[in-house]
């Protein structure tokens, strides 16, 4: 019977412990010798795979908002893993097992997501496939239209569950029938690539640890139940393995945590946080507010644009206007219905009263690629563009649906009203000729925003004064410019909660400053929007001739100059830019309180001190107190610094010198035992053993460590035949004699009859040490003096004690579980 059942399932059950059983006993008819029993293996393996996949999925937390998506994921993964385990226990063929798991995946997905469309709630029908199609379409929409923490709608969660369920099957197939457990890590990495590229915090600790634990479990599982007896032979699973792997893992983890701290510039410079691989490159249709931060954090100035302009100062280049604020995010509204084709003549949709300043700007977009065209405000006509371009009458942003700015050279004629403080303060008329969209404030605005706005503008009379007050507040020394702070504090984005966080933490970059000012302006009844583009940039030192205008200096901007600024609408003047971001851009003359001309210095210095206290232009904002405070803390009081430095140096010296010191003390204690008198003869007897211990440590320090399984005589002869003691008979004969006599003394004391004390060993040890020092390289000498391996080994041994304890605990727990499992299985009726 038993034999038939085996023939019936000629399973290549490669993972099970069955292969250990000699083939001669395989067809044994006794029910007790069940050679093919897979035992615990499938369950542990399936559990490991589930842990690995779920652990890796933990890292998706920042990709999806909240945790609602995790529950369906757990049910899917666990259901698939359970199916696998059950099928394996029943010893079904591997291919059928995989197919069964796929069926289970389909069933659980139908049950979770398309229950109404499925037969009996979990059997897929044609209706189910239609529902799945809708879900996939919805997921695709989400991927294209939403940015990083997306709402976990059914579509995206369905896709996630399906992928991870498939991953479980794939990993299991790799690990069990294909016997390639190590390759299963690739699948886990595939999961973690998503958060690594999308989330500013990258994978995160929880996800990494979870995935690693699961992966190690898979590896360990396939090792413990290895089909090849040789792999697990001679390796009692208990003793060394777990300890070794724990120590290795702890070391690796420690290094991974410590090394980035030790290497300067891991957060800025070469690998600035957040400037990781961005799947969308430079902005291309997705929300420019999101990509702006990435551009700013990029270490190299990608997308260099050069321009020269006939206007008196460098200008802001505006590529897109962000005006649609739905409470969740600020996003551009393309208004594709009302866009007008042809950029020869562009008209603003409102009337401008007063003087108009005309300018000609020649722009070379170079490698910068974007559907939005960077242009100075407000463009009147654009010449020299290739492709079809359209413009939006409401925002004057120029956009192409089919071509991009790549390698475009064009000339923009722009006309902006001459804006003065006087004109602004007189522009108190109620905004006409623009839509109410620019005034819309979402109902769920955090109270902190409204409170702050009211508080800041409480003393201001007209709109201009309110705008100035808001700008002044944001540029005050309370706020710091930092590209990293929002990332670290988790509010890198542009939603409402982000805004509240920003106002609380008071640190961020242009996206936060501009959206804060825009929202606060809307709260105060001033129409506002956000312009995204480039701050003026730097002079290249070259001049460019503009047709009919003469030659003008050339400026350059690149990704690091990416900027966002608010534009406020004043009736009669149109959209007026403001500059609430400290240390960036140029504060326009009209936007300064006293009409002192703003300095032309742009953002030259902010790269050097990101995240530190920003000193605003002193001419524009005299800040009493603030300056003194920031300047006074460091140099005023040198004494504590000096003391601290000295203490640090002393501590460092003590730290570095402690091995040497300990070693010397240990040697002293061994060679001059303190208490020979009160202990009587035992103290004397120990002297040879102590001298021997010292000799062993000395040899260890100089590169000939003793092993516990070798006899004293063997160690002695090994030491004497090694090169570090020099040659016998020559200069180092004394050392050889000393080693020999120390060995003899120790042997006599340790193994011989009890007898009186041996002669003092200090002199002989000194001879040996001298000889060792003479025969080794300086490197070995240095190590022996400052980092004696004998001592280090003992210290590391002591450090490893907790790990060993944990290891033995695991081992005992595992043995206990195995024992109770075996007892439990003995109670079950035997399967035929």
């Amino acid at each position, binding site marked *: 019977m038993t034999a038939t059942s085996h023939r019936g399932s000629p399973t290549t059950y490669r993972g099970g412990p069955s292969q250990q059983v000699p083939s001669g006993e395989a067809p044994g008819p006794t029910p007790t010798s069940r050679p093919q029993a897979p035992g615990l293996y499938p369950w542990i393996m399936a559990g490991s795979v589930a842990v690995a996949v779920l652990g890796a999925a933990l890292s998706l937390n920042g990709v999806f908002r909240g945790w609602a998506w995790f529950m369906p994921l757990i049910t899917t993964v666990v259901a698939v893993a359970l199916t696998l385990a059950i099928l394996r226990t029943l010893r079904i063929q591997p291919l059928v097992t995989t197919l069964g798991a796929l069926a289970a995946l389909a069933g659980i997905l139908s049950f979770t997501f398309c229950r109404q469309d499925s037969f009996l709630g979990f059997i897929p029908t044609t209706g189910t496939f239609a529902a799945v199609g809708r879900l996939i379409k919805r997921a695709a929409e989400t991927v294209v239209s939403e940015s990083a923490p997306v709402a976990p709608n059914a579509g995206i969660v369905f896709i996630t569950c399906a992928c991870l369920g498939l991953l479980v099957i794939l990993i299991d197939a790799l690990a069990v029938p294909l016997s390639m457990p190590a390759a299963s890590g690739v699948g886990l990495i595939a999961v973690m690539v998503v958060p690594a590229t999308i989330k500013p915090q990258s994978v995160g600790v929880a996800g990494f640890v979870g995935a690693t634990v699961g992966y190690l479990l898979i590896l360990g599982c396939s090792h413990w139940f290895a089909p090849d007896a040789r792999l697990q032979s001679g390796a009692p699973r208990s003793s060394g393995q777990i300890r070794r792997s724990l120590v290795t893992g702890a070391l690796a983890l420690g290094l991974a945590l410590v090394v980035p701290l030790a290497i300067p510039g891991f957060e800025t410079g070469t690998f600035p946080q957040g400037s990781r691989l961005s799947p969308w490159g430079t902005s291309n249709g997705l929300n420019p507010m999101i990509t702006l931060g990435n551009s700013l954090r990029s270490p190299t100035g990608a997308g260099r644009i050069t321009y020269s302009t006939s206007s008196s100062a460098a200008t802001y280049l505006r590529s897109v206007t962000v005006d649609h604020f739905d409470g969740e995010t600020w996003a551009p509204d393309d208004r594709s219905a009302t866009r007008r084709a042809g950029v020869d003549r562009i008209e603003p949709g409102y009337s401008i009263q007063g003087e108009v300043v005309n300018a000609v700007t020649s722009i070379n977009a170079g490698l910068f690629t974007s559907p939005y065209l960077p242009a100075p405000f407000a463009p009147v006509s654009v010449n020299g563009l290739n492709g079809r371009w359209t413009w939006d009458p409401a925002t004057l942003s120029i956009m192409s649906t089919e071509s991009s700015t790549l390698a475009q050279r064009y000339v923009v004629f722009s006309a902006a009203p001459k804006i003065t403080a006087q004109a602004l303060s007189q522009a108190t008329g109620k905004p006409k000729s623009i839509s109410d969209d620019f005034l819309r404030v979402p109902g769920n605005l955090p109270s902190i925003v409204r409170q702050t706005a009211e508080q800041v503008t409480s003393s201001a009379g007209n709109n201009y004064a309110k705008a100035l007050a808001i700008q002044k507040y944001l540029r005050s020394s309370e706020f710091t410019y930092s590209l990293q702070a929002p990332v670290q504090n988790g509010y890198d984005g542009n939603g409402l909660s982000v805004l509240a966080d920003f106002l609380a933490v008071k640190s961020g970059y242009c996206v936060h400053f501009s959206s804060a000012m825009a929202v606060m302006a809307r709260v105060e009844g001033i129409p506002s929007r956000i312009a995204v583009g480039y701050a003026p940039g730097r002079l290249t030192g070259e001049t460019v001739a503009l047709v009919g205008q003469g030659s003008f200096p050339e400026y350059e901007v690149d990704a690091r100059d990416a900027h966002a600024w608010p534009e406020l609408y004043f009736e009669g003047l149109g959209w007026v830019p403001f500059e609430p971001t400290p240390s960036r851009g140029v504060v326009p003359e009209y936007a300064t309180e006293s009409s002192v001309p703003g300095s032309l210095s742009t953002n030259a210095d902010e790269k050097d001190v990101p995240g530190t206290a920003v000193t605003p232009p002193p001419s524009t904002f005299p800040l009493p107190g603030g300056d003194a405070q920031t300047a006074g803390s460091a140099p005023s009081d040198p004494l504590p610094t000096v003391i601290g430095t000295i203490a640090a140096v002393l501590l460092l010296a003590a730290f570095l010198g402690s091995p040497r010191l300990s070693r010397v003390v240990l040697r002293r204690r061994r060679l001059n035992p303190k208490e020979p008198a009160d202990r009587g003869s035992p103290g004397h007897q120990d002297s040879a053993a*102590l001298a021997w211990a010292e000799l062993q440590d000395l040899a260890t320090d100089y590169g000939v460590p003793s092993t516990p399984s070798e*006899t004293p005589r063997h160690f002695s002869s090994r030491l004497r035949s090694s090169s570090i003691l020099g040659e016998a008979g020559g200069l180092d004969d004394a050392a050889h004699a000393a080693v020999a006599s120390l060995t003899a003394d120790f042997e006599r004391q340790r193994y011989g009859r009890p007898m009186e004390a041996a002669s003092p060993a200090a002199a002989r040890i000194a001879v040996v040490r001298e000889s060792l020092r003479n025969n080794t390289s300086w490197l070995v000498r240095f190590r022996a003096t400052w980092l004696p391996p004998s001592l280090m080994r003992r210290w590391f041994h002591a450090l490893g004690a907790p790990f060993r304890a944990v290891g033995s605990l695991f081992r005992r727990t595992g043995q206990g579980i195995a024992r109770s499992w075996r007892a439990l299985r003995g109670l079950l009726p035997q399967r035929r």
Partner: protein
Amino acid sequence: MESKRQVTVEPSPLQGEAYSALPRDAALLNGHKPQVMDAERFHDASERILASIGKVIDGKADAAKLALTVLLAQGHLLLEDVPGVGKTLLAKTLARTVDCTVSRIQFTPDLLPSDVTGVSIYNQSSRQFEFRPGAVFANIVIGDEINRASAKTQSALLECMEEHQVTVDGHSYQLGLPFMVVATQNPIEMEGTYPLPEAQRDRFMARISMGYPDTDAEIEMLETHQAASPLINVTPVVTAADVAAMIAAVQQVYVSTAIKEYTVAIGRATRESARLRLGASPRSLLQLLRAAKATAALDGRDFVLPDDVVDVAESVLAHRIILDRKAASSGDTPQTVLRGILASLPVAQEPPGAWRRDKQSA
């Protein structure tokens, strides 16, 4: 059979009524103890024996030393190797070097137990049964091709080896001192043989595989041994009493607790090893320690070092342990397994740290 009779016929003291219950050397065992040889004379005597053997057996100093070790440790020696490498020669040389009684038994399938132990014969003149001692009544007994005899005969030898006495018709007869059985066994041509069972192998203190001599030793052997048998030149260099005194000296060798612990640890390790089906027996550990004592004495020491134990461990233990089937099929031999165990077993040394010493002595 002829050779056996030739050698076993010894001077009268062993025969007749004078030999009733107490052999000549019984006094050595039961009464006053033999003289303990001092270290210097011990050294001289051992040097002489080894030199004498070395004259006959070229290039096998290790085997010769081990044979002497076994003699001094009151054990028995099993020489196991292919034919023609000098097994019997070694046994004979050792026997001749010592001035003592020697007998040789050529084991054949028809050899009877009484041929080994002796038999009671009815003496018609005295009208009494008289005990005629067998071949085993000698100081050194050479058993050639021991695996050719039947199990019955082999086990007759067993009692003698273990108990140093022969029991015939209810009478026990003590054997001489020193008493040593040197048996040879041929591992090739196993057909029609009775391989020694484990119990019997366990009674031999050590097993030596002679092995082929190296080139130089072989050339020298061809030169010197052309004309006549080298055995002719071998003359006794020590007396049986000397050997007894040497044995007594070996018994005086001191064994520290650490060595005992180490020996026991070796035994436990063989029993716990996953690659062994049968580990070392307590008797084998006792014999291991005795062999180690003899090694220490031959090395001129009056105490045993771990090195002594390690030196003889392979010879003493390898023929007693039985490999697990898996280990055997994966190419392990008892020797390699033992070496592995010895290489991983901590030697009982003083722990290296001073603080541990405090803990220990506290």
